[in-house]
């Protein structure tokens, strides 16, 4: 079964510890939100878990094999990764960008096997891009671009998705749209680990929230159990009221 697992994973940059002994698990059927203030080490944790960044201690496994030893193609077939920085160097068409998601299967834009083409079409449909397929990406709005990147990730048909701030800089409507798309993907039998900064959004969509602060995971559990005013005070330094999955932030301390 698809599984992303880290045990006592640590990452260092020079003398600075970016991630300290992180234990994390992601399996299909879960939408895990990774929350924490800027600089808490969320991105480093994701990269080290995927084997894209060097770890200093602990281990990270994808489906039982060491993620750092996987070839890029093997990794890409097991987990789709949406990084925080998503530059597009050329004004390609939407369909060509989504088609890059099939790279690990030997596809290239303009050279898609029938399976590749089917996966690309499905991802385009899932992300509601059907009317934009032939548009160049430099003519799209931020919300449309975010959907293109999601579709690119989904086109890989990987059982797991790791997305670093997929809704950053989007308006509320588009944030909900992207999260609905991720939710659908999880309901279809896949697993997603998503870095978010919007606590309400995380509480609304996540099956589990992993809380990070100062390079450590400080809590990991269902929103109902881990989302408390004390937690928000501890992690973000904000005063908040919580009722069930609803959060209202009232100010800072």
């Amino acid at each position, binding site marked *: 079964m698809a599984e992303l697992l880290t045990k006592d994973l640590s990452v260092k940059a020079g003398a600075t510890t970016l991630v300290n002994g992180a234990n994390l698990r992601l399996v299909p059927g879960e939408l895990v939100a990774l929350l924490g203030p800027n600089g808490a080490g969320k991105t480093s944790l994701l990269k080290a878990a*995927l084997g*894209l960044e060097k770890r200093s201690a602990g281990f990270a496994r994808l489906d039982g094999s060491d993620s750092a030893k996987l*070839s*890029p*193609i093997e*990794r*890409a*077939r097991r987990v*789709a*990764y*949406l*990084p925080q*920085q*998503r*530059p*597009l*160097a*050329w*004004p*390609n*068409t939407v369909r*060509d*960008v989504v088609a*890059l*998601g099939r*790279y*690990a299967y030997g596809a*290239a*834009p*303009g050279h898609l096997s029938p399976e590749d083409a089917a996966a690309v079409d499905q991802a385009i449909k899932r992300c509601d891009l059907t009317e934009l397929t032939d548009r*160049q990406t430099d003519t799209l709005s931020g919300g449309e671009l975010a959907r293109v990147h999601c579709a*690119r990730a989904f086109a*890989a048909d990987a059982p797991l998705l790791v997305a670093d701030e997929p809704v950053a800089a989007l308006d509320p409507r588009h944030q909900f749209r992207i999260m609905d798309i991720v939710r659908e993907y999880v309901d279809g039998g896949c697993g997603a680990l998503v870095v978010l900064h919007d606590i309400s959004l995380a509480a609304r969509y996540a099956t589990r929230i992993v809380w990070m602060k100062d390079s450590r995971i400080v809590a990991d559990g269902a929103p109902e159990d881990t989302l408390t005013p004390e937690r928000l005070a501890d992690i973000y330094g904000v005063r908040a009221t919580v009722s069930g999955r609803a959060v209202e932030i009232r100010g800072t301390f």
Partner: protein
Amino acid sequence: MTGRLLIPGLIAASACAIFTACLLGSTLMPADRVLSAFFGGADAGDRLVIWQIRLPRALAAYLTGAALGISGAALQGLLRNPLAEPGVLGVSASASLFATFSLYYGLTALSPWALPVSAILGALAATALIALAAIRTRSVVTLILIGVGLSSFAGAAMSLLMNLAPNPFSLSDMINWMLGSVANRSFEDLAFAFPFLLAGGGILLASRRGLSALTLGEEAASGIGLNLRNQRILTVLGAGLATGGSVALAGAIGFVGIVAPHVIRPFVKHDPARSLVPSALLAGLFLVVADIGVRILPTPFELKLGVVAALFGAPAFVWIAMRRRALNG
């Protein structure tokens, strides 16, 4: 889509241009005499002019252009910037520095391979330096400045060679390497550069799929399955071999590798992988036409091919740079 006719069209235009290059010269040779000279007919004089002078020269211009065009398109894909090119990045200048070095120190007398090999070593050294710098910095402006530095250094070192070398050649010889020319090339010269051009072009074509992946940026490209380290090595090696081979053949000719991919890109939906072959064809075509211009312009001394290429290419470079929105450096 215009894309499907692009490559056949370019091949046909290239064949026409090379044929025209055989017609034109100090004396015009009618098409029927050129054709019969091609197939071993005509008189010995015609055959000599075609097979010893005009055809090798036209092919040298074509291969040089094709090598620069494919290297430019590949480097632009690797560095994700339309301003990257062997000339701008100082690769051609470094190659011609190494080539002059082997000439001035008599290495070329030891083996006919010395010249192409040293040009290629120069090209590889510069390409590797640029690729190393590209790992550290995201800004292509920095890379271009490094290229400016490399070019200036190569120019200065060539002047130094002029003063220090045990058997200095003439000034015009050095100028040939700095400005680029395909005058007086023989099939033998072509044969010594051809294996390197073929190997470089082959490596670039074999690794072109990764260039499309790099459209997404390096991080996402590794995420979708690209082996970034191998891609860098292959592109650097391929561009180094092709550019070095072209410099061994014609000296440093700039800006061709920038203009051709820029023209081609809209026809291939801006996909770096698909721009490689048409860019090579168009750049080859461009240099053959430019060389025809060099030969038939009534100037007292023949213009250098590199000068003509730069006269068209440099303004295009400035235009592309000015039009470019500051998206990612």
